[in-house]
């Protein structure tokens, strides 16, 4: 027979200080875990959402990202023969020449440090080709004008990007561009960018060679042959599916995940000890009580379970509180400078279901491991001796 839960519940309040300290400790550990993971989850979500398996991005071999890639017209011309390129409604090949440059814009936070924001020069076709891009406010820019559309994330994170604002772009920051639209791109990395007419960007930055070319295929299954063609002697450039390209950029999250794992393991071990300490005290101070329970017929097992349940109660509650506290970070905008593209990626901190499950698992593991040894000791209580001692 199992002991009633209310027994465990009431026991928690017998040693308020010890229970409270352990509770606080597990809360803090869960909180730190959830916050650290919200960074990597946010970045991962943003980069994972970027790119379509039907799109192929073509770069200069050897370059690590669009920012360091330069393609000559002679090279991009070789791409038109690529097999499987889709056509738009007017029968034009869906090939988007893109020019990636940067500008410094202050952040919207108090310090207002400058961030290196990506500016993408594109033609009309880019809006059809990057299917996730949707104008949600205002309109698209007119080709050949000094107008820009800005990503939702960029608008939220950096200053002066509201509809109707003017920003300075160009090599000398001497061209005024008007913000005429805001776009969303399914939470992807492109939402951290500013898009402007390609020819005007080329002129403003005095950079006339494209950074990358994106090809839209008729079907994702055609990606293999198309990439073979491009990487081969016929074109001799480097191509990846957009999905793979952005996945490679998310290598940064690996560092955060490693850091988180190391820290949480160490803190988790600390928490296990604290729980064990508390539970030992609980067992030791209740020797007589345990002996009594054994005498009236509770099995060793049910007593063991009772202590594990007690520990799980503390850890479970602490987990809930820790997660709740971490939710205050959920949805906050952060950014980081990618060392591959030299531009910032603005992402949302995310407390995802996966984080919740990880935190729960951690709390449960800490609770069970911490309670195991004390519970064993409780179960092994010598009834006669414990009762006689009294």
């Amino acid at each position, binding site marked *: 027979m199992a002991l009633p839960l209310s027994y465990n519940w009431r026991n928690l309040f017998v040693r308020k200080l010890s229970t409270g300290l352990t509770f*606080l400790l597990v809360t803090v550990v869960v909180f730190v875990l959830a916050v650290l993971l919200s960074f990597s989850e946010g970045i991962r979500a943003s980069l994972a959402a970027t790119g379509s398996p039907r799109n192929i991005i073509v770069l200069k071999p050897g370059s690590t990202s669009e920012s*360091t890639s330069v393609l000559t017209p002679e090279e991009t011309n070789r791409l038109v023969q690529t097999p499987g390129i889709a056509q738009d409604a007017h029968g034009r090949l869906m090939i988007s020449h893109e020019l990636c440059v940067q500008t410094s814009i202050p952040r919207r936070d108090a310090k207002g440090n*400058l961030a290196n924001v990506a500016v993408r020069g594109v033609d009309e076709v880019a809006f059809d080709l990057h299917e996730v891009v949707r104008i949600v406010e205002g309109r698209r820019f007119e080709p050949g004008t000094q107008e820009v559309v800005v990503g939702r994330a960029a608008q939220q994170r950096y200053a002066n990007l509201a509809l109707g604002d003017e920003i300075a772009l160009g090599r*000398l920051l001497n061209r005024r561009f008007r913000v005429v639209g805001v776009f969303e791109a399914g939470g992807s990395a492109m939402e951290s960018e500013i898009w402007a007419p390609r020819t005007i960007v080329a002129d403003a930055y005095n950079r006339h060679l494209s950074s990358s070319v994106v090809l839209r295929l008729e079907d994702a299954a055609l990606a293999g042959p198309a990439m073979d063609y491009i990487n081969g002697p016929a074109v001799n450039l480097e191509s990846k599916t957009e999905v793979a390209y952005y996945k490679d950029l998310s290598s940064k999250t690996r560092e955060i995940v490693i850091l988180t794992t190391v820290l949480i393991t*160490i803190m988790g*071990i600390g928490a296990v000890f604290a729980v064990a*300490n508390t539970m030992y*005290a609980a067992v030791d101070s209740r020797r007589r009580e345990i002996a009594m329970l054994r005498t009236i017929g509770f099995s060793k097992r049910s007593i063991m379970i009772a202590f594990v349940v007690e520990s799980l109660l503390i850890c479970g509650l602490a987990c809930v509180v820790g997660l709740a506290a971490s939710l205050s970070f959920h949805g906050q905008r952060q950014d980081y400078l990618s060392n*591959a593209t*030299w531009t910032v990626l603005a992402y949302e901190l995310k407390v995802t279901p996966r984080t919740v499950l990880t935190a729960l698992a951690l709390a449960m593991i800490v609770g069970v491991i911490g309670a195991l040894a004390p519970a064993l000791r409780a179960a092994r209580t010598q009834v006669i001796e414990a009762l006689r001692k009294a």
Partner: protein
Amino acid sequence: MLRLTYLYRNLTRNRLRTGLTLAAVALPIMIYVLSMAVVDGVERFLENSAKQLRLAVTQKASIVNPLPAGHRPKIEALDPTRTRLISVCGLRWIGGKIERDPRPLSTLGVDHDTFAATFPDYRLTPEELDVWARDRRALIAGRATARQFGWKVGDRVTIHPSVPPYIPMEFNIISTAEDAEDPITLICRLDYIEERLKEEGWAQGLVNFFFVKCATKADVDYYTVAIDELFAGSTHETKTQDEKAFMNEFITQQFDLPRNLTILAGVTVFVAVMAAANTMSMNFRDRTSEIATLKSMGFSSRFVFTQIQAESLLLCTIGGLIGALGPYIAFMHTRLGNLTVPLIQHLEISPTVVLEALAISVLIGIIAAVWPSWLAMRMKVVTALRSLE
């Protein structure tokens, strides 16, 4: 003597609990030491930058936009006597990778004639400088990077640049810059890159930034303004900052790591305090009757108070020693020291951080024992003994 015996007996009475508490203090202290080592690394780096009295000149709109190499003679002409403005060195970032290895390199091409004067903190020997001047393919490899890739002086390495000319380039490693402040960057000669750019038909004569070495702090302030004024209104306007501000811009954009790690270190110390306080209060609970007995035998409240304090102090200090010296020995005296760490790449744990951690563990010991020792001091003997079973 009695005190010490009593202390020792108390700690060995419940070995398991003592062990658990030691670990619960040692592990957070370890996190503290490691985080602070990273923060320290960043700070040391910035401090050195400030000491060097150097200016970083970049293109006005963005660090990514190149500047013409021709800016160098113009900047130099601001002080033809070279008394206030010592030297100007142009740098071009080529990043790079080696064949079949995903790890990105940080390679910079520099003006070879002014490099040594502008970056004396690389501390190259006269022999190394001699080779540097003669060998167009010379490469100075940061010691941490060299160790990672197993490179030695005299090795020949092929680097694939991430920017034009994009073709593989061969270098001869002439130094692993053992005494340089920067253990990561690879330095090569700009004239070699220019030569390859010319062969491949790319634009030449461009640099990403200039570093300008000044004689005094006043000169740093003066030229910060003077250089930008010189190019104001031209087609290649500049932005000049002292090196510390320039570096700081990069670092704050990398998750603001120094600030966030400091917060994290604070949280872990908090964890350690709670874990230790937990044990101490339990220790006290277990011994209520014993303390009452001690008091009734005539030991003063002060004795009881200091005894609990001393116990906690000893426990936490030992925990702190384990937590602080563990990583210190691991990173400074074993192969673990070659591990790459984000942002600073190479972790160096200074004795100062170890001492700081020890001081913190002593503090943890005191704080953890405040409540139980105060209770013990205030305890009424009669009540305590009466509640005995």
